């Protein structure tokens, strides 16, 4: 997920939407190989008494303007994902610790070699009354994987061999995979892998899903109105109606919330949060660990092809100062690893601290004293330009001269993928395993640190063919120790995702990082 330019200092009037970083990406994914393992989903909010039925909730999101669509497979923005979640279901979704939880799938069971998985569907029906069947599942996945289309979840479903997959009966699907994939459930939870009815192609006039809300009306870029689906398999929502409204300007979202025009405002800035937190007018919800904040070093080119230089850079950063300065304190410090607090995170490693003497020593040994590097940044995400300036000053204390280069907002991710040596980087919530497969394997499509190591790839494959969860966790821990020691990501922090709600709104999850099941989930929300 991507925090849109929440604090874009250059265009205070023109802040825009954020794309989501796919949760659950290329090659296969995560979690509980065992069937039917439901963990309680992340901390539905506080008291506020007994849920009450009825009422209409209006939620303001940054959107995509007139080109918005309700096609769940085209979802790209937070607003798209939130609307898709209200109308449609996935087979699984991510819990607060980014482990896959069953949704439409009642259970999943692998064969002994982990390359064939049997998924049983729960009893659920679409809004038109027809049951959700194995045929619908296969149609949906085949649509996403259509080679002629560019649906976002296509890369995530890559491990599936859909030709060899089949419907065993009405409610059983047998998925064939191209290789052993222990984390197959992550794939079912992939961002955008929604289940639509067999043959559905038109989603903007009258979309039919199996989600908690039914379609009422939709005007792209303005509003989408849904009403309660009383037959929802997970229990009918409390809200009678749900309306998504688009307000790209952060100040407009806050103002409409303060003025009582909406009851839920997505994506607020830390400054707004500080101004209103605890004042009693509105509730501020901070979703921890929603966005990794890092500097990415390209490990295949000078000066970062020397692991002593990379380690020196790890030691240059004062993480607290970066979090306080670049994120306005709305976050926590990182330890050069992705996924703090997620399943399989290596939390036993010592917290890295700034150590300028050791950094100087390492640079000298690497023959890199008086080093000059260019740090690419852009106003593409909150805190990027600030982080670059702060790090420049921190590095200068150890004699490293960092030149900050501002890049274009709209093509930043593509520009920095191949070129440059050091850049600001950010990643949304996804399972740690997906982070490996998308960013750190030799054939990963978005390998921003150019981390190419055959033995690392082999460890990943080993994990994917390991059925026992404990053994698998040990392999992941080994991979993370390696990254901690000599990886290319200087992970300095994890940003909070900030929401505002009216005081009458209850049941908003407080622990779900953006992109997970309980984030922007309105079927468990009620109005007091």
């Amino acid at each position, binding site marked *: 997920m*991507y925090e849109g330019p929440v604090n874009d200092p250059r265009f*205070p*009037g*023109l802040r*825009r939407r954020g*794309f*989501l*970083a*796919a949760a659950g*990406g*290329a090659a296969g994914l995560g979690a509980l190989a065992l069937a039917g393992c439901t963990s309680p989903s992340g901390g539905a909010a506080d008291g506020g008494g007994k849920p009450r039925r009825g009422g209409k909730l*209006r939620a*303001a999101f940054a959107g*995509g*303007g*007139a*080109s*918005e*669509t309700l096609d769940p497979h085209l979802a*790209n923005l937070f607003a798209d994902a939130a609307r898709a979640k209200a109308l449609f279901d996935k087979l699984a979704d991510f819990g607060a610790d980014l482990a896959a939880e069953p949704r439409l799938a009642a259970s999943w069971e692998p064969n002994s070699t982990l390359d064939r998985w049997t998924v049983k569907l729960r009893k659920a029906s679409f809004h038109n009354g027809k049951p959700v069947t194995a045929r619908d599942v296969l149609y949906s996945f085949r649509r996403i994987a259509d080679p*002629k*289309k*560019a649906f*976002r979840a*296509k*890369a995530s479903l890559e491990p599936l061999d859909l030709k060899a997959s089949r419907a065993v009966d009405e409610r059983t699907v047998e998925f064939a995979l191209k290789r052993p994939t222990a984390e197959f459930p992550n794939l079912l939870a992939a961002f955008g892998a929604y289940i639509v009815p067999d043959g559905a192609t038109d989603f903007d006039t009258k979309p039919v899903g199996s989600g908690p809300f039914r379609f009422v009306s939709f*005007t*792209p*870029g*303005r*509003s989408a109105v849904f009403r309660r689906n009383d037959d929802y398999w997970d229990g009918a929502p409390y809200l009678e109606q749900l*309306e998504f*409204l*688009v*307000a*790209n*300007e952060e*100040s*407009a979202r806050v*103002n*409409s919330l*303060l*003025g009582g*025009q*909406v009851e839920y405002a997505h994506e607020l800035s830390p400054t707004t949060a500080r101004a209103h937190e605890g004042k009693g007018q509105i509730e501020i919800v901070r979703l921890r660990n929603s966005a990794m904040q890092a500097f990415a070093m390209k490990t295949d080119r000078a000066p970062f092809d020397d692991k002593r230089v990379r380690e020196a850079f790890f030691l240059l950063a004062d993480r607290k100062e970066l979090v306080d300065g670049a994120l306005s304190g709305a976050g926590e410090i990182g330890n050069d690893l992705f996924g703090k607090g997620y399943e399989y995170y290596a939390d036993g490693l010592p917290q890295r601290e700034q150590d300028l003497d050791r950094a100087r020593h390492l640079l000298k040994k690497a023959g890199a004293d008086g080093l000059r590097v260019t740090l690419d940044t852009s106003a*593409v995400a909150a805190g990027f330009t600030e982080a670059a300036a702060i790090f420049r000053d921190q590095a200068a204390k150890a004699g490293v001269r960092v030149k900050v280069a501002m890049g*274009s907002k*709209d*093509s930043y*991710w*593509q*520009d920095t*993928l191949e070129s440059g040596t050091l850049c600001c980087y*950010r*990643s949304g919530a996804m399972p740690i395993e997906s982070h490996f497969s998308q960013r750190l394997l030799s054939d990963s*499509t*978005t390998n921003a640190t150019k981390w190419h190591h055959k033995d690392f790839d082999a460890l990943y494959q080993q994990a994917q063919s390991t059925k026992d969860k404990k053994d698998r966790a040990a392999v992941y821990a080994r991979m993370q120790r390696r990254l901690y020691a000599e990886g290319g990501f200087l992970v300095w922090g994890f940003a909070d995702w900030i929401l505002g709600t009216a005081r009458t709104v209850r049941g908003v999850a407080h622990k779900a990082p953006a992109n997970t099941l309980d984030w922007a989930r309105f079927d468990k929300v009620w109005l007091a």
Partner: protein
Amino acid sequence: MNGLRSWLARRLLLGAGQTVAVVLLVFALTEALPGDAAVALAGDQPDPARIAAIRETMHLDRPAHERLASWTAGLLHGDLGTSLTSGRPVSSYLADGFGPTLLLAALTLLLLVPLAGGLGVLAARHEGRLVDRLISSVTLGVYAVPEFAFGVLLVTVFALRLDWLPPTAVGYGDDLLAHPAALVLPVLVLLSRPVCSLARLVRAGMIDALASPYVAQARRYGIPGARIRYTHALPNALAPAAQQLARTVDWLLCGVIVVEALFVIPGLGTVLINAVAERDVPVIQGLAVVFGCTAVVLNLGADLATYRLVPRTGVAA
């Protein structure tokens, strides 16, 4: 009258040329922006294979001149093309955005003309005295405040503190007229700067006109003061203001981006911002055509008005 007709024909021809030039320029500039629609859509997942696939589905893999040519061919049939990102016709984007923008522009204009004219005449009548100095300094001061800051200030005071008006128009969609309270602040912000510039122009023109020999002559004939002011002096004072008014209307119609963003009014400005961010070239091009034509027609209208108000000055082509 024949002279006027050939002048009109020349001006229209020139205007068409200008519009074409604007459209070409916009196309070239959009092409020159870093990244294209596929890159913008891929965002922070710049998987090269995905970008290539998106490019292919959007036909962005064709050379720029071919895309321009096919778009132009469509335009000649009155087809503005389809959006790259949604596949919906560009004309529906324009139609949806036009309503709110037109409503805002019309309301602003309705208030702008009498307000600015009245203030200008008032100041001119009291030239150098307290009223004039007051009007002049306030207009100068307000003119210096950026719209965004002014808007935030108004919202904070009138919507959030005093709770008199809604802070935004979120959720009202097309039906802005049914919620007139939501229009007050946007219109105030839109009015703030044009009122100042126009009032100052009217004042200056009025002072010049009142000091002119023909007004002195009219006075000598014993024509009453009010009549001199409004039928003899004011038309001359309005001529430069008419030109400025045309520019203002142009600015209003072409989507007042800041006001639309601040108050969540889904007009043409919003369409434009989104289209640029998404590198949605057909939509940007469609808007360029509309804005180009609007500018040409409005300026032509202003020149005609000037001609009607002050025939002696003649009209330059």
